[in-house]
């Protein structure tokens, strides 16, 4: 008998388990330029539709064989069954390559990996406050659209989003014309420095969050650069939020995606398997090594 608990005899075994490390083909069907260094890629299975089911906040390993393989958060909502989306910042070997490709290019994709946001368990019925900085909107957009597609299951929705400049705001169309029009949904945009033609808020996200002085009856979903997360969490606590009200999503180097290659641990937790979503009080239990 097999050493695991699958109950199969050894010989058929290798085909009985879905191999978590073996990818499938994904086809890039369209590419949108979001900012000078961010593009959003639509990916489908070769026969159309999504490559696999997932929940908001989960990730996928994308690869161009011979170039590299890396973990990306899935930007689209699983309520969308037609395609998956990935908003990817150009910042390394694989992402440089991806920024050069054209539609119809095939990739390899495997997943989904990680726990995702607790959209059913903890977030249902709650007022939600999304706070994102830069490319940090990518994983949160999946949750935002999931909640907006199940609008009656969630309370008020506030979205605070900041970037270095107005041209660095990703998903600008949804931010400006789609989300603000929806029921009980408010978008608060900010950029780091004043800019000609920008009549919105200017300043860093952590201080903007303090200025907005939100009521405490909200669950917060926070994602951005590590330094932004740290200062925003401090701002939230200053207003009176508790760490147990704040969820964030982490990123570390990953190779396997299933907690075995030994790479993405923070203390005894693997970001790929036990995360990437953590409640902020859970992070207090772990060493500060991320």
């Amino acid at each position, binding site marked *: 008998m097999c050493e695991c608990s699958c109950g199969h005899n050894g010989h058929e075994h290798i085909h009985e388990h879905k191999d978590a490390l*073996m990818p499938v083909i994904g086809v890039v069907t369209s590419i949108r330029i979001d900012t000078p260094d961010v593009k959003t890629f639509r990916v489908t299975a070769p026969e159309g539709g999504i490559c696999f089911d997932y929940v908001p906040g989960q990730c996928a390993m994308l690869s161009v064989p011979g170039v590299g393989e890396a973990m990306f958060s899935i930007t689209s909502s699983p309520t969308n069954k037609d395609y998956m989306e990935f908003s990817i910042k150009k910042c*390394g070997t694989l992402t440089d390559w991806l920024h050069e490709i054209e539609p119809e290019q095939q990739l*390899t994709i495997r997943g989904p990996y990680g726990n995702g946001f607790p959209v059913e368990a903890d977030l249902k019925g709650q007022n939600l406050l999304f706070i994102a900085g830069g490319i940090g909107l990518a994983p949160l957009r999946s949750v935002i659209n999931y909640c907006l597609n199940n609008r009656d299951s969630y309370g008020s929705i506030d979205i605070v989003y900041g970037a270095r400049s107005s041209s660095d705001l990703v998903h600008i169309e949804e931010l400006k014309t789609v989300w603000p029009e929806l029921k009980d949904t408010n978008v608060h945009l900010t950029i780091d420095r004043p800019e000609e033609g920008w009549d919105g808020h200017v300043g860093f996200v952590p201080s903007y969050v303090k200025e907005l002085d939100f009521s405490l009856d909200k669950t917060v979903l926070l994602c951005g650069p590590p330094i932004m997360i740290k200062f925003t969490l401090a701002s939230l606590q200053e207003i009176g939020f508790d760490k147990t009200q704040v969820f964030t999503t982490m990123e570390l180097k990953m*190779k396997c995606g299933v907690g075995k290659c030994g790479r993405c641990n923070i203390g005894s937790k693997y970001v790929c398997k036990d995360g990437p979503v953590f409640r902020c009080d859970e992070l207090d239990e772990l060493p500060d090594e991320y």
Partner: protein
Amino acid sequence: MSSRIWSIDLEKADELFNALAAGQRLYLPIEQAGQVQFKEYDPADSKQKVRLDALNTVRSAKDLFFPQSENMAAFKREGKKIEIIDNRERVSPFAIFGVRACDARSFEILDRVFLSEPVDVSYADRRENGTVITLACNEPEETCFCEAFGIDAAEPGGDISAWIADGKIWWQPITARGEALTEALADVLTNAEPDDEKLVMQKKQIREIIAQLPLHELSLESFQPERLKEIFDSPKWQELSEACIGCGTCTFVCPTCQCYDIRDYDTGNGVQRYRCWDSCMYSDFVMMAHGNPRTSQVERFRQRFMHKLVYYPANNEGVYSCVGCGRCLAKCPSSMNIVKVAKAIGGEANV
């Protein structure tokens, strides 16, 4: 455990190995260029130097189940199209003889990683097809500390336990797989008594030697998962890590190190994807496009020992990810090792 036991004269070990090799591939501790490693035994090669007396192979028996590198897949890229070729081969049945009690325990530690969901299919395939025949350690060395992990070198475990005593190899199947293999050896093995005086004496002698080893008293009691942050924040890591040159030798000879890399090689005729051992001691291990959370050797050094003594136990009911084989003690070029760490950090914690 089966109470049935067999024996064969040590002089006739070749007969045993030939019979084993007739039914499946057989791996034995074989000396090559002065180094003893588990190698495939070839009955036709009279020059092969089988070394049943060698305590530890240079690399552990882990290689047979989690090889240093393995081909996972191939890819063909043509224009915008990609073809995925799953070219992993299923292994045929094999046996490995001469596994020490420490290495046998290491498989249980790796099982908890690779056989937990989602199961690692290559590892599972090798575990299902490999029969482990252990060999008790008649001459444990100064670097041995398997006892600290509750391992009894006189009862080495595996699918079949073997001993060398009174000029004989003693043979006791433990698992159903071990029983099945033993049945196929009926012509070469002779029935023996499990409480034969010579065998009992040998076991007693092994335990007596172990009780006198310098690391006999080593205690890891203070490494408890609930003290994770306290141990992580110990000021001792700085000083301890200064000896570490980041060569990764400890990770490569370690029977429980599990970390791996996945890497593509463009052969000019398609891309081959390999899974290979990696080391948390290396500077690029966790390096990402946007930064590195472990920038110095202090953090990398700490990660390795925290993983073995705190993180792994935290996820596995207190089981440590070390078996006390002593390879890292023997091989570290700067004489830094898990025992020194355990004494320094654990000792401090005991105060």
